[in-house]
């Protein structure tokens, strides 16, 4: 009885997650689908191909990818030292540092976007890729710092001391000991940063001033346009990279579970 119950619940959960995806696929690849029919009667990929070959979609995809990757790398570079100190050290003002670093997660993105827009207009960063990347760092950094600080709170510095006294330099210790030990959390943090930047709409809209057209911008304008086929196709394109990234790292994440539990 219990088994059946679990199975039904699990199945329901899968449906909830998978149903929108199925709907997107149905819309994107069908030509005729009228109300009483449970499935589309005719299938085609012509709409999909024509959307993909649209130069705006292509450049949106490219810009989104490039921005998300740069933002991920920068978040790691900036967040790593902060997370290490917050996770490993006790110091005066540590709580305040936490609070400040976490402000972006509680302050509405609209407020951040408006404020940044005014600031960036003054210093000439509005409408530029640099501006958009900096704006994206605001929501990504707290998650990167939070994930890595958690890893560092469970971290044992004696591994590094061990490496040092065995003759390895600071730099070598960082690359051969610290990074492998922290790797699983590093992957998770990068994922977070990538996905948050990838799905960023509001900040891109404000700071990009309509000149930086990423995929979410296209998707939102299509959504307000109301053509379900275009929305479905763009959504599928939008979904692909994050799903691929997660699928590629899932195995590694599972394999590495033991690493942090010394």
């Amino acid at each position, binding site marked *: 009885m219990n088994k059946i119950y679990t199975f039904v619940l699990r199945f329901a959960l899968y449906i909830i997650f998978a149903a929108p995806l199925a709907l997107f696929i149905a819309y994107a690849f069908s030509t005729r689908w009228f109300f009483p029919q449970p499935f589309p009667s005719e299938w085609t990929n012509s709409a999909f191909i024509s959307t993909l070959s649209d130069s705006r979609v292509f450049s949106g995809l490219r810009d989104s990818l490039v921005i998300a990757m740069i933002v991920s790398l920068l978040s790691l570079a900036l967040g790593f030292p902060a997370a290490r100190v917050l996770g490993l050290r006790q110091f005066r003002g540590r709580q305040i540092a936490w609070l400040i670093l976490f402000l972006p997660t509680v302050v509405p993105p609209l407020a951040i976007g408006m404020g940044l827009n005014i600031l960036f207009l003054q210093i000439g960063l509005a409408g530029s890729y640099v501006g958009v990347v900096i704006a994206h760092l605001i929501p990504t950094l707290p998650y990167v710092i939070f994930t890595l600080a958690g890893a560092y709170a469970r971290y044992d510095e004696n591994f590094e001391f061990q490496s040092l006294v065995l*003759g390895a330099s600071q730099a070598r210790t960082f690359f051969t*000991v610290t990074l492998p030990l922290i790797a699983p959390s590093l992957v998770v943090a990068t994922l977070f940063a990538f996905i948050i930047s990838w799905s960023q709409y509001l900040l891109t809209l404000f700071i990009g001033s309509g000149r930086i057209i990423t995929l979410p911008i296209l998707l939102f304008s299509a959504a307000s346009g109301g053509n379900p086929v275009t929305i479905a196709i763009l959504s599928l394109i939008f979904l692909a990279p994050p799903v691929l990234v997660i699928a590629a790292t899932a195995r590694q994440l599972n394999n590495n579970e033991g690493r942090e539990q010394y």
Partner: protein
Amino acid sequence: MTKVNLISLQKTYHGQPDLVLKNFSLSVDDGEMVALLGPSGSGKSTLLKLITGIEHPDSGDIQFDGSSIVNVDPNKRGAVLMFQKSYLFPFLNVEDNIGFGLKVQGASSQTICAEVKRMLDLIGLPGIEKRNPGQLSGGEGQRVALARALVTNPKLLLLDEPLSSLDTSVRINLQEAIRKIQHELGVTTIFVTHDLGEAMAMSDRMALLLDGEIVAVDKPDALFHHPRSVAAAKFMGVSTFLNGDQLKVQNEAGCSSEKIFAIRPEHIRVQKDGCENSMPGVVSGCVFRGEYVEYQVTACEITVRARMPMPAPMFLNGERVFVKFPQEHLFEVNSAR
């Protein structure tokens, strides 16, 4: 190999007023094994961190073979440290763990392979090169950690309670193994522990540490039989101290009230009848420990702990007895540190 001189080391930690080490001086001879014995918080681990260079002393000097190494980076000092946990790198197998130090030095892979094999034979675990640290028992892990520390031929080996997380049987086994390997390689070693038995079994000399200061340094047997001060005697398991006044009760000869005498618990006798050199008391505790019985007797406002070897007369709590302090086992100690 290396003679180590620690000269007037002082250390405070940021934000804490107390000195962790106070004017700490100690010299360790070439190939000698010195045990640092002290309770937790006595500054033992801090001292090892200063020697490896993980921490820096506020003042004082550390010399290897007469030259100061205080300003040398930890990775260039040649002082390796082994902790209570093995800290084997979990992402490397046993071979790569042991070979870590050699690889850092740029040794060829053939050299590393041969050296790893030699070390594994030395620690008595041949053929485990390809195992992962997770597959090793606690004792095996510590042996591999020892091999990793020794493979680079260090100037100085520092052991920070390397055995205290192990079971008793494994621990005794490893005590002997470490001592044997240390002798064989002749590596100068400083060994930190809070276990008296371990310190005595493994070291050439023992340094007793209390609140960042050395209480006494000597050979284990000398310290055991003749600790010079109250503090040192306490370290060595003595808990009964009597001043001249208390002893006058039983012995008129040569006792001034300022002098303090100590006696080891195994030399105190608890008996039914009074005799010369004994004082009356009441049994306030009795623990059977197999090889001996431990009695607590309250006599003359002090609590005397005595260890009577089996077979011993059995007394019950509250029973009136006499404790005897045989004259030949009483020794004088300083009240100062």
